[in-house]
């Protein structure tokens, strides 16, 4: 039986337009055999949650460099819960000060990837997480 490909939504929330990281991750995950949907720029948490439902994704990757993570992430997690998407794995990549990480994980972010992370590490994390699902 052919294995279902892991579906990933890469999203760029907030007003920031620096999309180098988001684009690299989208391409690296695609090269690793995943189905990747990229939202484009300036997505509100509502838009991201709706896209996640519509595309029925397994993973959401948020790229945030602007310092707005403490506002955006909890909002998105609440919306996902409301839409019954509790099982989606939400990852954050970008500039996240160490002091903010515990609260983000508490809010349900599965992992936070800081600058300098190799794309293989992210691929491996997702593959491991979804190996049995």
């Amino acid at each position, binding site marked *: 039986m052919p294995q279902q490909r892991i579906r990933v939504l890469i999203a760029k929330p907030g*007003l920031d337009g*620096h999309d180098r990281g988001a*684009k690299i991750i989208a391409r690296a995950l695609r090269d690793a055999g995943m189905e990747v949907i990229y939202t484009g720029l300036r997505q509100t948490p509502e838009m991201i949650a709706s896209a996640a439902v519509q595309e029925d994704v397994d993973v959401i990757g948020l790229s945030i460099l602007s*310092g707005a993570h403490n*506002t955006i992430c909890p909002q998105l997690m609440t919306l996902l819960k409301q839409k019954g998407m509790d099982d989606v794995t939400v990852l954050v990549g970008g500039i996240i*000060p160490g002091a903010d990480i515990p609260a983000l994980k508490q809010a349900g972010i599965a992992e936070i990837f*800081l*600058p*300098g992370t190799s*794309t293989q590490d992210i691929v491996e994390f997702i593959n491991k997480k979804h190996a049995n699902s």
Partner: protein
Amino acid sequence: MTDHKKTSAPTLPEKSPTRRSPSPEEKSWEQNTLAPVLDKSPERQREFTTISGHPIRRLYSQADLPDWDPKTQLGYPGEPPYTRGIHSTMHRGRLWTMRQFAGFGAAEDTNQRFRYLLSQGQTGLSTAFDLPTLMGYDSDHALSEGEVGKCGVAISSLADMEVLFDQIPLANVTTSMTINSPAAVIWAMYLAVAEKQGADWKKISGTLQNDILKEYIAQKEYIYPPEPSMRLVIDTFEFAVKETPKFNPISVSGYHIREAGSTAIQELAFTLRDGLEYIEYALRRGMNLDELGPQLSFFFNAHSDFFEEIAKYRAARRIWHKAMIERYGSKNPRTWALRFHTQTAGCSLTAQQPYNNVVRTALQALSAVLGGTQSLHTNSLDEAWALPTEFAATIALRTQQIIAHETGVSNTVDPLGGSYFVEALTNEVEAGAWDYIHKIDSMGGMVAAIERSYPQREIAEASYRYQMELDKKEKLMVGVNDFISEEKPLDILQIDETVAHRQAARLNKLRAERSQEAVTRSLAALRKAAQCKENLMPAIYAAVKAYATLGEICEALRQVFGSYEEVAIT
């Protein structure tokens, strides 16, 4: 030579090394001295490339400059083709301007940082605005939530601008403002503060970034579609030529193109082609190039590959001079001479072992100085984490002061001129940039190329290729993919949400106290002007003076111009 073969795809469309014609002495050296060594111990790598993937040969000699003519390609400083610099005495006459980019929180927070930096010997100001301001939203707009004062200072109206420059005499200080889509509005606010201080517009000087093309290409902070955006840019050009002859209405920027992951050649080519595009639009408006030319300025990145960067700055001056003469028949030497600001590469800073960033920044800054920069920003060691603390920003400024006053590198003009390697690399970088410029010409110009996503795609390719090189450890970043060690976290600058509350309170007060009727009238006049062809600066200035907010003014223009959405490339 054995290492010409490439193992990975070359950076397109860069030229392969120029044909070499080694002298008999060099051939003898290769046979008698080099070959036995290579037989015994091969070199560290099969091929050596710059951080951009440009091939670098083992040794450069006269053989690498077969057709090189120092008279036409090197010249003398202050003379065409400006390879050696745009001034005859360069940094012996006057050091570059030490211009540290700063901005965070509300206007009063940044005002304090500005005054601190000036007190520490900084010689020019440079303003970073927060994302809502960059996108033309007031601090209390729904989309501003979580972003107020985070990446720069929050400026929503003339009232904020008055606080930002409180007790800073605009007649005596030069100010750079990193603002693009709403540049005309922010500039109008600056001019209003200058007027209020009694500073003569004819004498004030500074630079507005105002480079919308690189926003579509790289940084993506655009509001309107390209055509109305270009109109706004040309409106500021006309206004600047007439009203503020010492103010640069644009800083054509490669910095952000490079940060988005381009190669050095792409940065150079796309930036200069952007510059040509602005000139094309200005000429179509009926402007005179030799009146405008002296007010055009540029902004490059200082990345980590030392010699490639120096070659880039030298090639930039040569290309611009050639283009001004050959394309437009410019008669004004001040149009020919490319002036530029440099910032060290933010994307080269590592979150890991952040103190290493001081060293990276110093070396990058050195390349900018040796490349003949007119002004320089050095990044702070903590900027992979947050906006800099005062402590970190001070070290960054001190780095420039050490280069200027301790190293002796500015004691002579263009100390690397005549180096076989630097001259050959300058030639290669120039040739690679011209290839791109011609390609974009053939697409019908930069706006047309952007609409086809051409530069966006080239940059995305280069950025992905570099990431793969890092992942495979073909390129090393100290502390990131090698030489890894444990470290203690840094103390970083935190911007809390009280900034947003202060801003909201100030906006409420402003809206209650200003004449609503004057605001409504000025915004209606602006919309009307936008529907016609007239220059929008006077209408924007009037709205700013009536204390219409940035958000209100940008929204009025959005109603006429519409907004832009890109086709996302991944």
